[in-house]
């Protein structure tokens, strides 16, 4: 009975949870520190408003009605923080409460700027991103735009510097205009993502001081856009430049020395990143986990060692608001009893993933485990527990050649007794002729 319950929940639980989840209804809070941002960044705000099912609330950083929770429930699913200079927000929203918001599954989009207060710095460092100090900027003497105001800090980042994940940044991106702070992440942090880096000649430093120590960030380690996907799949995106989201940058051309002018790719990139951050892209889920003996349909209560087993599940991906079959070819399945005994790739047929293998000749309680984590996709996992029995007393090999002597001896004994009984019972002794002569 317990096995049935486990099997049923494993199959339907992910589906229930996704229905309950807020995949179709997003409540976005946009916090501004300067009311002019509504006008200077109108295209960016329109991108947020055009997310399907989104209801957007725009508030000022010092608005007293700012609040994240009401009666213990989160009021918003996503936050866009366009308040780099804010030292604190009203409504009790501090760096800690915002990080708690992310802990509870909310997504966060944060913009810093050339002047950034402690609030954004604290939020960034909580998610593993270190912003450079105020007064510094990203400088690139070899890749700056002609509209630069002299410091070479209106840098151009090629699309080659983007993270290699189409689900996050889309494809065919143009060069990006950027003016702001540089960021670094710890390479040992497995969750932090460097989404857009500077070129090899970029660096982050105070333009008015000579470089004495090593700059905060140099070369490809200078991150212009950084992100994090938390273990609960909440996504955080931090860009060091509020200006790169502005209408002026969206609509301008990129003019570099010696190269033809091209349209800036800011709008397309930020559109893709917004979709990723707010769980419209790069979201997958597992449905319909199933396992059975090869060739049969029912799920048994237990397996016996060395049986051929087939494990299957269905994975879908959210594309443009609809769940379509997931096309990943590198999903792996593990058969684990504390340590994995079998790990193999699952064959993907239009969203149905299957793996066939032989149950190992070790008995115990095993788990079918799938744990799929790739850059840009939500992390999904599923596990089903199943016992594996050793061979029953009557499942061993019989009629072994080496045992023929034993069979022969028993058989000959039985035959002998039968024949002997015949002879013994009906034997007629020859009567010896009396010696009469």
């Amino acid at each position, binding site marked *: 009975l317990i096995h049935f319950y486990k099997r049923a929940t494993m199959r339907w639980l992910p589906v229930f949870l996704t229905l309950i989840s807020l995949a179709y209804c997003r409540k976005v809070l946009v916090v501004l520190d300067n009311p002019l941002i509504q006008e200077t960044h109108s295209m960016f705000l329109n991108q947020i408003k055009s997310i399907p099912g989104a209801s957007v609330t725009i508030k000022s950083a010092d608005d007293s009605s700012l609040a994240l929770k009401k009666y213990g429930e989160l009021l918003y699913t996503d936050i866009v923080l366009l308040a780099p200079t804010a030292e604190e927000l009203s409504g009790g929203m501090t760096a800690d409460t915002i990080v708690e918001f992310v802990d509870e599954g909310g997504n966060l989009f944060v913009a810093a700027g050339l002047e950034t207060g402690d609030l954004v710095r604290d939020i960034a460092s909580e998610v593993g991103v270190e912003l450079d100090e105020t007064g510094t900027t990203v400088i690139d003497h070899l890749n700056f735009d002609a509209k630069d105001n002299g410091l070479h800090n209106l840098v151009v980042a090629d699309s080659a510097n983007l993270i290699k994940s189409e689900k996050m940044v889309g494809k065919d991106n143009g060069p990006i205009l950027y003016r702001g702070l540089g960021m670094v992440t710890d390479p040992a942090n497995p969750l932090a993502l460097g989404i857009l880096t500077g070129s090899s000649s970029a660096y982050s430093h105070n333009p008015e001081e000579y470089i004495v120590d090593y700059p905060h960030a140099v070369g490809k380690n200078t991150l212009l856009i950084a992100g994090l996907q938390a273990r609960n799949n909440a996504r955080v995106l931090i860009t060091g430049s509020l200006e790169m989201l502005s209408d002026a940058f969206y609509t301008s051309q990129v003019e570099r020395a010696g190269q033809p002018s091209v349209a800036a790719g800011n709008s397309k990139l930020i559109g893709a990143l917004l979709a990723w951050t707010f769980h419209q892209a790069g979201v997958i889920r597992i449905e319909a986990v199933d396992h059975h003996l090869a060739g049969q349909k029912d799920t048994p209560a237990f397996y016996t060692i060395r049986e051929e087993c087939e494990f299957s599940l269905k994975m879908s991906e959210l594309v443009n608001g609809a769940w379509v079959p997931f096309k990943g070819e590198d999903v792996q399945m593990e058969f684990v009893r504390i340590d994995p005994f079998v790990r193999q790739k699952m064959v993907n047929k239009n969203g149905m993933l299957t793996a066939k293998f032989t149950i190992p000749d070790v008995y115990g309680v095993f788990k079918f485990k799938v744990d799929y984590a790739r850059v840009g996709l939500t992390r999904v996992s599923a596990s089903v527990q199943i016992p594996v029995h050793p061979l029953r007393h009557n499942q061993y090999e019989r009629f072994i050649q080496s045992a023929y002597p034993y069979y022969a001896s028993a058989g000959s004994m039985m035959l002998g007794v039968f*024949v*002997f009984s015949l002879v013994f*019972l009906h034997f007629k002794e020859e009567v010896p002729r009396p010696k009469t002569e």
Partner: protein
Amino acid sequence: VQADEVDGRLLQFEGGLSVTSVVLTGASALAAKLKKPLPLTGEQAVKFANYLLSRKSVQQPKGALHLLEGIESMTGNAQFTPLTVSLASSLAVSSDSPNVQISVTDLKGNSAGDLKVSVISATHVQTDKVVASNVQLKKAGDVYQLDLMALKPAAGFYELVVSAVPAKANAKIVGNKDIKLSVKVLTKMAVNNAELKVIDSDGSTEGRTMALSYPGKEGKALSLSNKKKIQLTFSVQDTVAGSKMLVHQAFVKVANLKSAAEIVYVAEADSNKVYKFELDLGSDAAEFKASGKYSLSLILGDAVVSNPISWLVADLDLELGEAAAAGEPGPFQPKPEIKHLFREPEKRPPQLVSTVFTALCLAPFLLLLLLWIKLGANISNFSFSLSTLGFHVGLGAIFTLYFYFWLQLNMFETIRYLALIGLVTFICGNSLLAGIAKKNK
């Protein structure tokens, strides 16, 4: 509605562009009608103008209309005519483009009449040196021009304070005095006396010294082990001023040609403005994760330099101690596949052994038959009576039942069959023995 000042520079009415524009247009129309001046100071007019101009990137047609109407209300016969004084040429001034061009227009971009435009002061930001003061600019076409390079300025950022005074005094003109503009004087740089030295880490033997000249590359790839040091020295010259200069960015980049991983070092200048960079492969080898082919490049740049340099100096072939740690897949890579190794079944003795012993086991039965024949055994007393037949058939059936029990039956079925057959066999056997005993009496 109330006007809010933003950043001390802009003045806008709460509600943004549309509200601001509507208020300004309406107020100026009302003032024109009533022929009474608005309670507006020149400063405030300038700030309103700043706000309107900052909304240049408006997206909607409705917004564009408001912008144009707002600007219209501040030009022509308006109470105040704010002027825009801005840089018409590019920010950077160099010997290729020595002129600073300033345009002075009204908000719509039209000429503001006869003006005397002069640079009150031009100050080098870094040294606070004033290179020009009270210089009048010449009118060249629509703009006012100053040949800055003729003053032989040092490279760097300059702050110009500009004033545009109308030839005829005009109280309407505002926003025309003490406008601060920034320009940058560029210079070209050259890398001189670049030398690459390879020496032993402990400095025992005198190493090789290679002179390099930009943009050439050192011909042969340098093969280095982790007992060597590389030293790169160079100086940067300001070709205009003719002296050595310091640049903001003087980096040395070592890049792995195969994996594109790079490490960037900062080259430091000594008191003679000679840059020196040293890389000790013995102590710094930990940063290089793998041996192989690398490239050594020099990246030089500065905000006041018009020709930033990225110079591939030499190719390196590094032989470092241990090989890199085996590539463990990251958390986002597929893990290595595991196939379970099944236990090999035990080896069995060769079939010949079992065949021989099977024959040996069957031999006694054959021997029994042979010896019986020899002894003259017979079953002559066999009589076809029910009990005899019953007994022998029953006995045979019991043994057949044992055989089938061995093949496929389970204990329960066997016991059932055995009970039946056993009973029959017992009764027949009993009666047979009784018969034989009677016969023998």
